[in-house]
């Protein structure tokens, strides 16, 4: 079925999409949510939920299947020393390895940011806010 699905553009009106009971979505679990034609990857990392746009802009690999690890940075902040950072919060694309910070959606080394979504737990349900 490939019927055209417009993204929900109703201004300001937030749409809440319950995903599953929080008890079924523990630390370390991940879920792929498809809303219309949009895929969203949702992770539980140490009790915190993160949701990002679920397809890699490079060649569309499913980001929900990416590993979570750290990465190296080297910047003015690190006095141009290479440092291992964000251990457990860097989503590595299972396609070819682009890396995204799950908190911000920012791609390391690219001028690119994935859309992120708010996740709340309401009445025991992990819920996406779109």
């Amino acid at each position, binding site marked *: 079925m490939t019927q055209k699905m417009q993204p929900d553009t109703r201004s300001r009106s937030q749409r809440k999409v319950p995903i599953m009971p929080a008890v079924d979505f523990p630390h370390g679990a991940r879920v792929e949510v*498809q809303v219309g034609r949009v895929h969203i990857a949702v992770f539980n990392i140490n009790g915190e939920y993160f949701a990002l746009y679920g397809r890699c802009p490079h060649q569309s690999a499913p980001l929900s299947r990416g590993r979570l690890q750290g990465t190296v940075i080297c910047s003015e902040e690190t006095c141009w020393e290479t440092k291992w950072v964000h251990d457990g919060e860097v989503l590595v694309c299972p396609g070819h390895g682009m890396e995204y910070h799950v908190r911000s959606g920012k791609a390391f080394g690219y001028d690119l940011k994935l859309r992120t979504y708010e996740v709340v737990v309401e009445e025991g349900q992990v819920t996406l806010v779109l």
Partner: protein
Amino acid sequence: MESDGPLVKVRKVEASYNPVQDEDLDQFGKELSELTIVDVDVHVDDTLMFMLDYMEGHFRKRLETVLQADFKGEPGNSLRNMIAHIAWLGSSYDKPPRAKLAAKEDLLARMEKGIIDYSILFPSELLPIGYLPEPEWAASLAKAYNQYMVDAYQNTKGVKIAIVVAPQHPASAAEEIDRHASHPDVVSVCLPDVGVNPPIGDEKYEPIYAAAARHSLPISFHGIEALIHDNYPLRVAHFHTLMQVNSMGFPFTSMLQIMSVVCAGIPVRFPNLKFAVLEAGLTWMPFIMYRLDAAYLRYRTELPALEKKPSEYIRDWYIGTHELEALPRRGDLVKLIELYQGQDTTMWASDWPHLERDLIAGFMRYEMDETLRRKILGENALEFFGLTPPK
């Protein structure tokens, strides 16, 4: 879980430690299943252990020794690991997913999706064969590989084989071509293009071109990370990082080999011989074509065999799309292909299942008319490899 908005689906998933495969095909399944799809660069598990049964005498003993070796935790039975990856071991912190070797069942499962009509198998393990300093050893490995591949993959629907030859032993390379060329599942001869010395257009290799021409077997140049060689055309010492070696190694090697073959007048001597170049991307094609043309103006007398400009020979070369560059705009690929006049010569290649393989979404994101898309996805490859149209 339905509401008044768009349909919502929720699925629990696991992290993937190998690169995700084939889901990309499913994504475009409908659109693609109508078309002829030829994947011109596919790799299966061809590690050296499979060749043991095909080796004889002292070389068999030698391969047994190789299979027992262990290099810093990398499997010792991998020629590529032995000479390619040690220098940069761990430099990516395991960031890219580990490339999984594809067993025959994996290949069959991919073919059974009914999307890909032909997969052309190219060597993995023996791609650096041109680097081996001992011609006899290299030739015996190539011979074992070819027979193993034919035995293991012949009569498999939609699967075709490119045999490999050891350029440093032209006589035995020609024999291999003579041996396998008439096999219906052998569709090309792969000339590994790194490490060879002298360059591949040299007079020394004439028996290889003559044999391929005799059998109308097209020649495919297939690159490999150029880091492994210590001589032509680039030296490891030129680069500090694997990324630099990888990105420059493939196209530079390809450009140098094309230049060498064309300037040696091989396309003039063997006008029916077809050539392809794989795994080097596309963007450098206009550069080498028109750069050579510019110099040809002044130095034509050095190449008296040529009957037309270098670009007019090179535009006849077929070229695999992998590793497809991500150009900024969706219309850019068509512009690039127009520049190198590659409408009839560009062939979709995935490099499946290697880490750097292209997912088909990478190609489908480019806009082009349907005629050109059909040519690139299959029709040009049918022509190059002489395959029967599947439908």
